[in-house]
């Protein structure tokens, strides 16, 4: 293990905040106060999450870790629902997508013996999976909402031929899931070339050999592909259920 910075070292790093504040006030940017507030917020938030994680790692066990991840899915779904504004029950659609995306991906990792079940592994990995699932759900809802509004005429033309909703909406569904997968496919393709991703960076800083660190990173990239794909598909299916009523009608989408 390399040496982890002491609190004294953190205090010294406050100088860097002062550099930013000095530039802001010297150039009269009018954001000196905001920089200070942001720096203090970051400090307080990280202290809090550090304390929570320390407690969780010490006391939670596997059940507590899973409960923590489950709780995170609700926060994530609340974030995604805004992208689906106007889609009925968007929160439920996002939640079921994120929960299924997270559970299936973590399930494979744990049952396959890929990662250990200690809280200090489960919680950060689970956080990444929930976050990926959330972004997939958000992009899916954004795309579905847009196409339900823009393609209403084509969708109703298809419904008017007696096609059931899943067929009348098939193009929009494919587009939504494909759109949601583009960012993760892109970042998987260029990983290591453009930026060194977080997991690997953290391990290398902590003194792990780079050739070992990349093993973790490979697993992380692959698990995110699955999490995004499952979450996007499940969110889209759930949202489709709310977008059409019992009489196979596209419901009005609130502005």
């Amino acid at each position, binding site marked *: 293990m390399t040496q982890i910075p002491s609190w004294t070292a953190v205090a010294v790093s406050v100088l860097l905040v002062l550099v930013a504040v000095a530039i802001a006030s010297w150039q009269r940017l009018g954001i000196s106060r905001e920089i200070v507030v942001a720096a203090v917020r970051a400090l307080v938030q990280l202290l809090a999450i550090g304390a929570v994680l320390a407690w969780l790692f010490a006391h939670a066990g596997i059940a507590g870790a899973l409960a923590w991840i489950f709780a995170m899915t609700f926060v994530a779904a609340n974030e995604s629902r805004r992208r689906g504004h106007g889609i009925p029950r968007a929160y439920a659609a996002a939640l079921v997508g994120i929960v299924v995306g997270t559970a299936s991906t973590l399930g494979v990792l744990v049952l396959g013996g890929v990662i250990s079940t200690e809280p200090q592994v489960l919680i950060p990995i689970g956080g990444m999976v929930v976050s990926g699932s959330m972004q997939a759900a958000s992009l899916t809802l954004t795309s579905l909402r847009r196409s339900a509004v823009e393609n209403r*005429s*084509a969708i*109703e*033309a*298809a*419904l*008017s*031929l*007696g*096609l*059931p909703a899943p067929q009348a909406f098939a*193009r929009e569904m494919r587009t939504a899931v494909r759109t949601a997968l583009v960012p993760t496919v892109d970042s998987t393709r260029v990983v290591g070339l453009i930026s060194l991703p977080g997991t690997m960076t953290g391990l290398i800083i902590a003194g792990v050999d780079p050739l070992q660190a990349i093993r973790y990173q490979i697993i992380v990239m692959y698990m995110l592909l699955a999490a995004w794909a499952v979450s996007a598909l499940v969110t889209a299916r759930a949202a489709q259920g709310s977008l059409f009523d019992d*009489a*196979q*009608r596209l419901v009005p989408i609130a502005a």
Partner: protein
Amino acid sequence: MDRPELFTLDDVSLVIEGRRILDHVDEHLHDGVATAIAGPSGSGKSTLLRLLNRLAEPTSGRVLFRGTDVRDLDVLALRRRAVLVPQRATPLTEDVAAEVRVAAPQLTDAEVRSLLARVALDPDEVLGRTPSSLSGGELQRLCLARALAVGPEALLLDEPTSALDPRSADAVDEVIRSLVASGLAVVLVSHDVARADRVADDVRVLHEGRVTARGASGSLDLEHELMSPPTDGHVHDTDDPRAHGSKHLPHEHDDSVRTADLPEQP
């Protein structure tokens, strides 16, 4: 001759966000004829059409299809028996043949060609093209072929010619007349009262959600009806809508429109 009823609107009202789109409409639309619902934009005529295939639901009253409440019918079956063609001709595929097959994938090549011919599209000319490469009038007729492909008993046409130049609109009207002549019932909605009067057998004038006049085509002073605001209990009923023969457009035998020697629907 007496025609059976195709659609019956029984005291139908529709209120959306406090706005009364349709106001106690009682109508009988008959089989085997073209009925036009004419009126200015905002009169509720497109909404009325959407009630017939359950794209919209009345706030009160009932819609009957051949005597059965549409809510008691399987909605997908209803929509295949009475196919609605929306106002904007919207292609759903990238290929003309695929477009015809979109809701009837089992059609043979010969049946696709026959359907194209039925809407006065030359199969040799349009097959292999993308629907979006067709002219507006051709695309509208392709949408009619796509609708005919499911074997409907009636077509519900929302402003079938409003986006077209007069010549293309005439060609679409010719096709509509030939379909009616072959026994298909048509309900069409139009803001162009004169054109609606020419293509339809029956005309209803809709004004602010109420039928203000009804009668056989040619029997109504339509421009006058259109301009007069609805008054309570006052409907111009100039003719029994069930009693009239078939209708001929003056240029039905024009050789430029390929309807005369076309095969029947498969």
